């Protein structure tokens, strides 16, 4: 609950984190920040953030400036080329690879995580849209407005071909209403179940009549629009589709819905209660549903850095695939983005192909049998190289040496634990790894690779 209403700074549940003896700014918290809100950090980036403290480190991440390692100077130009080629080729795999390129090499991992969140929120599948240019355009909106006011994002996405095709908006005409867009707009995108009635949906569908796609662009066709009065959420008037968006954004619960989405993406299981969500929602209402304000408040908070929130959710496939690539500095030579995108799909997260409009259920559902096995197989493929389209195997001892770490077995296990989860594996975990490695006398590059694969695939490393 906010301590003093009217105060500019938020307090209570979302009071800012400051280091203390009980909650020090240590390696564990630095790794937690990057693992949860980014796409993992290199040893050097972790050391830098340890030295610079939370304020600077979080700000860097929020501002899209947290990566020092391997961001090409011509990143945006290369990304654009890849996107154009993907669209021209009409090969969805290449569009997925483009996004993986952005996530792997780009300077703004939080921005990409937010883009991924919006892709899940406004889940649109190319299976029906069947148009890579439209899917790419939608993805650009997610990225451009990732931290904007939610209203800007909503407006952009709902006036955009991909979503309109996906939710049959084009079939929605005066006298012939199709409720699909209206329903998902209220249920999934803005308000959530329980905050509108079936009548609101019907009336909203009428407000949305006339919206269509022509020549790959949004069009509003007056002759198809129902101009009569509609009663939506207690307000009556000759509402248009744009009026409807305004009405939805004005609902107080829109802020709660947005707060819930942010918490679901960036906080662990059972970390926030209803009062905390309401407090965040109140702040969002006061800040015109500014997503950037919301994410900054969340990431700077005591709650985010509290012990219960660390390693408190299952890591999703995209983060599981890309995290070790970044952390182990496997970018030169790089892995194949086509292959990595395929791995993520095998682990259950096929970009541009969410299972349905509800997005990816995520959470514990990421750990179905096939996915657990896939994750274990991925870890082995990663260190070997060939399975991720990399011509050389990973050299763990070389990496350890570059960062002045010991070369023996126990030192490497400790190093990997600190790199991936922010602390050395506890005795039980360490013993299990050792048991799976065989005799210490055989220690060398091959066993070192095996150790890394075992650590990445361990149950402990499935959490973020």
């Amino acid at each position, binding site marked *: 609950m906010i301590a003093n209403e009217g105060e500019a700074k938020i307090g209570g549940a979302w009071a800012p984190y400051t280091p203390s003896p009980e909650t020090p700014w240590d390696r564990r918290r630095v790794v937690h920040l990057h693992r949860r809100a980014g796409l993992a950090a290199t040893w050097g980036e972790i050391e830098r953030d340890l030295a610079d403290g939370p304020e600077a480190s979080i700000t860097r991440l929020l501002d899209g400036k947290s990566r020092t390692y391997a961001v090409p100077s011509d990143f945006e130009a290369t990304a654009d080329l890849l996107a154009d080629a993907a669209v021209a080729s009409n090969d969805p795999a290449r569009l997925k690879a483009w996004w993986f390129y952005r996530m792997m090499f780009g300077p703004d991992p939080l921005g990409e995580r937010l883009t991924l969140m919006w892709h899940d929120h406004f889940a649109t599948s190319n299976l029906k849209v069947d148009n890579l240019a439209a899917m790419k355009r939608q993805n650009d909106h997610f990225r451009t407005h990732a931290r904007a006011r939610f209203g800007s994002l909503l407006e952009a996405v709902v006036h955009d071909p991909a979503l309109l095709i996906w939710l049959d908006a084009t079939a929605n005409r005066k006298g012939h209403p199709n409720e699909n867009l209206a329903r998902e707009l209220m249920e999934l995108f803005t308000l959530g179940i329980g905050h509108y009635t079936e009548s609101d949906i019907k009336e909203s569908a009428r407000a949305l009549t006339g919206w269509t796609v022509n020549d790959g662009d949004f069009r509003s066709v007056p002759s198809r629009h129902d101009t009569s009065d509609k009663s939506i959420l207690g307000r009556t008037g000759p509402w248009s589709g744009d009026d409807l968006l305004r009405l939805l954004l004005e609902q107080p619960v829109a802020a709660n819905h947005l707060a819930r989405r942010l918490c679901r993406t960036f906080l662990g299981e059972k970390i926030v209660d209803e009062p905390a969500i309401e407090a965040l929602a109140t702040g969002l209402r006061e800040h015109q549903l500014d997503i950037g304000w919301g994410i900054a408040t969340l990431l700077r908070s005591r709650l985010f850095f509290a012990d219960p929130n660390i390693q408190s959710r299952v890591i999703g496939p995209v983060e599981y695939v890309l995290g070790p690539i970044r952390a182990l500095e496997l970018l030169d030579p790089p892995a194949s983005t086509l292959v990595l995108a395929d791995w993520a799909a095998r682990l259950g997260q096929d970009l541009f192909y969410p299972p349905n409009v509800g997005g990816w259920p995520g959470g514990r559902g990421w750990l179905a049998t096939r996915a657990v096995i896939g994750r274990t197989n991925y870890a082995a493929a990663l260190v070997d190289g060939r399975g991720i389209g990399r011509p050389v195997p990973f050299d763990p001892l070389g990496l350890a040496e570059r960062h002045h770490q010991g070369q023996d077995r126990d030192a490497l296990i400790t190093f990997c634990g600190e790199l991936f989860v922010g602390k050395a594996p506890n005795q039980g975990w360490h013993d299990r790894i050792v048991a*799976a490695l*065989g005799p210490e006398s055989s220690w060398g590059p091959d066993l070192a690779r095996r150790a890394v*694969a075992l650590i990445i*695939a361990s149950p402990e490393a499935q959490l973020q």
Partner: protein
Amino acid sequence: MLSRRNFLNATLRSSSLIALAPTVPGFLAQAARAAAPEQDSRVLVVIQLDGGNDGINTVVPFGDEAYAKHRKVLRLPTDQLIKINDHVGLNPAMREAAPLLESGRLAIVPGVGYPNPNRSHFESMAIWQSARLDPEEHNGAGWLGRGLDEIPRPVEGQPASLYLGTGAPPLALRGRLAIASAIERIDDIVLDAPITSAGTSTDDNDLAAFVRRSTLDAYTTAERMAELARGRDSSARYPSTGLAERLRLAARLLKGGYAARVLYTSQSGYDTHSGQLPTHGALLSELAGALRAFLDDLAASGLAERVLVLCFSEFGRRVTENGSSGTDHGTAGPLILAGPRVKPGLAGPMPSLLDLEDDDLKMTVDFRRVYATILESWLGIPSRSALNGTFDPLSILRS
């Protein structure tokens, strides 16, 4: 590349789950010891015939004098047909299915369709998969997905349906909550990597314990799959066709205790606009051979009573052959059901080849009646919301 054999030897064997038994919680140890599936829920296996199967040349109404009239080049000689009764017989290419017919494991529902038939592949298939006639309701959920939404998952974290094939699971399996898994090959669930034991920890919180359990479950399944892959699957002999391979995988999974309620696969190529005879024959031969091998395999493993196979297509084909020794898109067609629990034989009258509508077969059974029967009587799932209506059941299953 580190080989799976090495890992299994070095890790799972030496720290075997059974050896961990004193420290592994009781129910986990039981799960590891269990060789047979724990649940006796029934399974539906759907084989989707893509393209519009020519029902008239599959379940041939040789007793109908109009057959010879409408089918000249495509007429199948009566003496070659596999007789079901005095006026109906199966295409000879289905000879592998004759034992199924003889042992009462094959049923046919003739004349299945829906009002105002749609002859577009995409639209008609969407109708069949969503069980909705209005194209504007083909918006993302299917009859099985909706049905599975109504019941709890057989296993936490595991989808209740599985698609065997390339690409994404079909609309039929999609629900608001229900998600289908997809496997192309058994490699998908074969471990090819080093593993540690999942470990145990008394100070695990609920999430950590769940992750360990999931890991343990997965490695156990992988070990079982590895055993199956090592050829303990002795007597099962399958033809070397694509469909047979997928059904072999389905049988393997069922034998391994995979807890899906629905397994779904497809067979493409039925859109026989020209040169129909050899193509159609090859497809039906593949279908019959795969079906027989699958059901015999399940029977040998004591699982056949739990399985019902449904074969359907998005429409039948025109009664009169076209000028290219083929047929064009038609309307109603036969559904095939297979398994020891079917009520064998023809489930209704064959549509007449004389009493046509716009030169096409009149449907006699709405496909949603078949769906309703399967959902309610086979899978034990209420069908009203999945099908958006109530449909009279058919007598296609043994009681």
